[in-house]
């Protein structure tokens, strides 16, 4: 389980996260929704340990990663898989080598085992035969799928998805969501996803948390969120502009 307690972060004088609390149950798909620029990616970077909070704690199965450094933090990160917003594929390598990279460098597996697992991972995301191409030679949707394959090839316990469908057409959005859902059922990892794909995200989430002005203002099942009476949540899921924006 991931437990976030009183997470607070400011950049200069700009507060981004304010006393944020959240619990992510083991094995669930938890989706963080919220407006663009609302601090969702900053929150995710705290969970991964890329940013350190001004105050508050992030606990992963009891280990307080906000206090960990060096090897202790790396030990927690070895349990992670991360799909970055832009894919973050290494552009000096082929797609095959990108997927193989964590197996070679992180797990130090033998060549034959690496080959077998890379082929399986690429097949799982429907990209057989694309391994020899460089990331620049494939479409945005394919890059996202390679990034998912790279994140999952080490069979992590916890996978973070930072807006995995941003910039894709609606068909690809559904394809990626179904892919994540299928892989989650098959591999059973805990998933934390940042997204603003409404209403598609309700089909794959077990829990939805709405982040607004640096706080989690509502947490619940997709059905509960859709039935929420909180005006901020209702406005967001209906895509209504705020009063200021409407003017």
């Amino acid at each position, binding site marked *: 389980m991931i437990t976030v307690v009183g997470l607070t972060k400011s950049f200069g004088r700009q507060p981004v996260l304010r006393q944020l609390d959240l619990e992510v149950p083991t094995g669930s798909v938890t989706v963080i929704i919220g407006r663009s620029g609302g601090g969702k990616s900053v929150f995710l970077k705290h969970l991964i*340990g*890329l940013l350190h909070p001004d105050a508050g704690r992030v606990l992963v199965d009891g280990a307080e990663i906000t206090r960990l450094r060096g090897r202790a933090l*790396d030990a927690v*990160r070895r349990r992670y898989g991360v799909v*970055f917003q832009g894919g*973050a*594929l*290494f552009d000096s390598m082929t797609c095959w080598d990108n997927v193989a990279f*964590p197996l070679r460098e*992180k797990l130090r597996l033998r060549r034959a085992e690496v080959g077998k697992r890379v082929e399986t991972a690429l097949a799982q995301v429907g990209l057989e035969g694309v391994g020899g191409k460089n990331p620049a030679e494939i479409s945005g949707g394919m890059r996202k799928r390679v990034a998912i394959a790279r994140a999952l090839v080490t069979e992590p316990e916890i996978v973070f998805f930072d807006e995995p469908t941003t910039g894709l057409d609606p068909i690809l959005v559904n394809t990626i969501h179904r892919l994540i859902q299928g892989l989650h059922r098959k591999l059973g990892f805990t998933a934390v996803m940042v997204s603003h794909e409404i209403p598609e995200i309700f089909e794959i989430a077990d829990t939805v948390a709405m982040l607004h002005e640096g706080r989690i203002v509502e947490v619940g099942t997709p059905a509960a969120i859709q039935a929420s009476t909180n005006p901020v949540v209702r406005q967001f899921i209906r895509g209504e502009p705020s009063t200021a924006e409407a003017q």
Partner: protein
Amino acid sequence: MTEPPLALALRPLDALGRSALSIVDALGRFGTFLIQALAATLTPPFKIRAFADRINFIGYRSLLIILLTGAFTGMVLGLQIYITLSRFGSEAFLGPAVALSLIRELGPVLAALMVTGRAGSALTAEIGIMRITEQIDALTVMALNPMRYLVAPSILAGVVTFPLMTALFDVIGIFGGYLVGVELLGLSQGTYFGEMQTFVDLDDIMLGFWKSISFGIIVTWVCTYKGFHVGHGAEGVARGTTQAVVMSSVLILVWDYFFGSVWK
């Protein structure tokens, strides 16, 4: 909690203090970066493939520019020193004058400046793009140290390639001086090389050697640091690249003076 506003008279002092703190902070991060990079360079696992790639990137791909600038620097030196020496009837010292200028000073400095322009800027841009596209973050969350993969091989490649390129620059430069002094202006070949053997000793060569190694560390250190700490977007990478080239070039010249003053 917000701080109470300062009295108007104290504001310049406040600004000065903040600037001083910011400079000290930046210097601390700059120094720490080198220590972390050296630690990654000296401890296993060593990234041999990345090191070979950096040798190719920094050294091999800079060969043409080194050969061209080395040859023309030697030719300019040959011509100008010959004109100066002929006023005193001392043309015979052309060989040692060209060789000493190149080996002690111009070879290490100009080779380092050329490599900064060609490979240093590319190094900053490459690492900077990796930073803004989250590739460095991807390495970090895989529990892999980016210093080991991106910085340590570059610094080690700088230590290996800079002396080699400086040696090449010196040899080609001396040959350029020979072309002008001997083949064009009629000085005897024996005088050009004979006097060179008399006046150039091992200390001169070692000065150039150590200078080139230190320049290799400075250029790769500055350029990888600037790449690691670029600002946002394409503008951030462009600014970081410019800063890397300017800072490396200035540091090369400043360090050259102090190094030359200490090692005479």
